[in-house]
């Protein structure tokens, strides 16, 4: 891992994104802070609808009306991106920060060739590049992401590609202008398991080769364990626990993280009932006044403080480094987890 005192590449502070509806503003991302250092791989995990994708789009300034960034900063190399014009942002998108989208089937324009879209990405940010040179570079990129017969396949349309191949193309497009950060929004979710593993391995390799930082958005904790240095657990628009991957996954402190981990089938607990988290995430337009997870929490047991007060992040010292946990009982739970492992 890179040195801790290095200034972060991406520094998100107190970001709140809301959608204005007839009945009022609904915040999908609430006061989120996170940072990604150069070359670091950070995961954001959470169930569907928790605001992960909105967070990704907010960082790139891609949230359109009726959505808007209501508060906070997105600092890239120290420069705040919130409020920049579309003209300024287009120089950053696809150049300094690129995006890999979750749905490879719909992420490419169906009526343009794959090559046209790849070459367009290159030449937009490198206007001096001739069409021929851009084409040569595009072939190189397709080879790097292991698309067979790259030269010929450049002139194919997206519908000639399989899902896995399209996601490789997306990775090639993301890499095209040697970005400092790739935001990958569920890059393997829509693929079958074998292809998932291949695409993930490829992503891991190219990221390592280029030294690109990655903000990986996923609901797959297996992917997080394998791929990421740090993890942020998101629930109802807030980051409820964050820390080094190993520490968070081995000893989850927040009840939600623990419940999430326990809901994964574990071969060593064969015969046990799979533990699903009871209930549903809260309606974003009618959030509980206290902790957002309180209605589903097995720890609080309806304690007064959980229902009435929004927990503040509490720092926990773990073996892998510091963690932050938004739970009133974080310290107590961390200590108990320590005892359990100690005994």
């Amino acid at each position: 891992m890179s040195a801790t005192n290095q200034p972060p590449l991406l520094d998100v502070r107190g970001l709140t994104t809301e959608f204005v509806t007839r009945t009022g503003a609904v915040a999908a991302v609430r006061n989120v802070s996170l940072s990604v250092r150069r070359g670091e791989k950070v995961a954001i995990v959470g169930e569907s609808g928790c605001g992960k994708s909105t967070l990704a789009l907010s960082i790139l300034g891609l949230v359109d009306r009726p959505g808007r960034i209501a508060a906070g900063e997105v600092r890239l190399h120290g420069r705040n991106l919130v409020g920049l014009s579309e003209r300024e942002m287009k120089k950053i998108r696809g150049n300094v920060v690129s995006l890999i989208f979750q749905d490879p089937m719909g992420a490419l324009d169906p009526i343009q060739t794959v090559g046209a879209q790849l070459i367009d990405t290159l030449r937009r940010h490198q206007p001096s590049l001739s069409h021929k040179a851009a084409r040569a570079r595009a072939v190189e990129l397709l080879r790097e992401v292991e698309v067979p017969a790259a030269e010929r396949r450049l002139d194919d349309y997206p519908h000639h590609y399989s899902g896995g191949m399209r996601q490789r193309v997306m990775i090639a497009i993301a890499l095209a202008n040697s970005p400092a950060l790739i935001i990958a929004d569920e890059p393997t979710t829509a693929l079958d398991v074998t292809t998932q593993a291949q695409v993930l391995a490829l992503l891991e390799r190219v990221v390592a080769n280029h030294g690109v930082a990655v903000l990986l958005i996923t609901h797959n904790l297996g992917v997080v364990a394998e791929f990421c240095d740090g993890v942020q657990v998101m629930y109802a628009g807030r980051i409820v626990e964050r820390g080094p991957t190993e520490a968070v996954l081995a000893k989850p402190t927040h009840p939600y993280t623990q419940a999430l981990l326990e809901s994964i089938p574990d071969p060593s607990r064969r015969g046990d009932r799979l533990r699903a988290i009871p209930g549903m995430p809260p309606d974003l337009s009618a959030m509980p006044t206290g902790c957002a997870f309180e209605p589903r929490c097995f720890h609080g047991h309806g304690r007064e403080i959980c229902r009435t007060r929004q927990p503040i992040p509490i720092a926990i010292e773990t073996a892998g480094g510091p963690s932050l946990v938004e739970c009133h009982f974080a310290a107590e739970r961390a200590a108990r987890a320590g005892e359990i492992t100690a005994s």
Partner: protein
Amino acid sequence: MLRLISGRVATSLISLFGASLIAFVLLRLTPGDPARLFLGQFAGEDAVQALRAELGLDGSMFSQYLIYMQRFLSGDWGFSYSTGQSVAELLLARFPATVELGLFAFLFAFVAAVSCALISVYRRGPVSDGGARALSFFAQGVPPFWFGLMMLLVFFEGFGWLPGPEGRLGLRVIPPPTVTGLMTVDALLAGDWTAFKDAVRHLILPAVTLGLMPFGFLYRLLRANLEGVTREPFITVARGRGLTRWAAYVRHALPNAFLPTLTAAGLLFGQLLAGSVLVERVFVWPGAGALVTDGVLKQDFSVVQAFILLSAFLYVLTSLVVDILAALLDPRVAQSQGGGR
């Protein structure tokens, strides 16, 4: 691609055959005797019979059809009973005016629909949204002849910006030599800038009037498609690659939204080419519309039949062009219809 085109040409020929058959049979089945009409009520029965024989009206329906088609294809479209002129001459003198008006009306409808749809979807504001929607309802609902008169009242009578109902050119402008029959094209070919400008000025009001309904229709269709396409992931991805929202809309959303409207646009275009009697009347446009209504009223069926065939030909031709265009623009169509890649 070649297979696709040849298939389309074959279906087009079948459509044309069908159109010719329907036009022929329907007109023969309407009551009235053209020979009697032509010669007048005082002509003797012998003379009427002689003319019927000369016109081939005494033969069977089938032989009449064969003779008609044979002559039609060799360029002999018969003559008009009411005017005594050759139908080919009559129609060729007037049809280009109708076609030119149709072309400009479509140009207006298309450009206006695309710009309005793009702007209203891009801005997403309630004002531009509601305004454009109201405009399209108006466009689809207003009777064209009334709208044409209002346009004349405002832009000719009121402001005097545009010429009044005086046909295709001003009285003092010398028409360019006829090559294509399209006034603007002929003027350009002759290098006559004055005539070109005058022809365009004369086209504006009738073209807008005629194109208003297709504009409203195309706008609503395009807008609905565009709204759907702008929510597609590839638009977000295109912006993530470094396109501004506007660029992503124009380069990626518009072509994808346009594809499904292509067929509808082609049909509208075909309809516009066939002209509109009412709009031509209002603007004293020397098109085929008046000729054909007169032909129908006077049972001058050589004229009507030739007009139907000519319109059918243009209609089928536009459909053919649209199909080929769709295959060229959308790689998936070419592939699914046996074109390979």
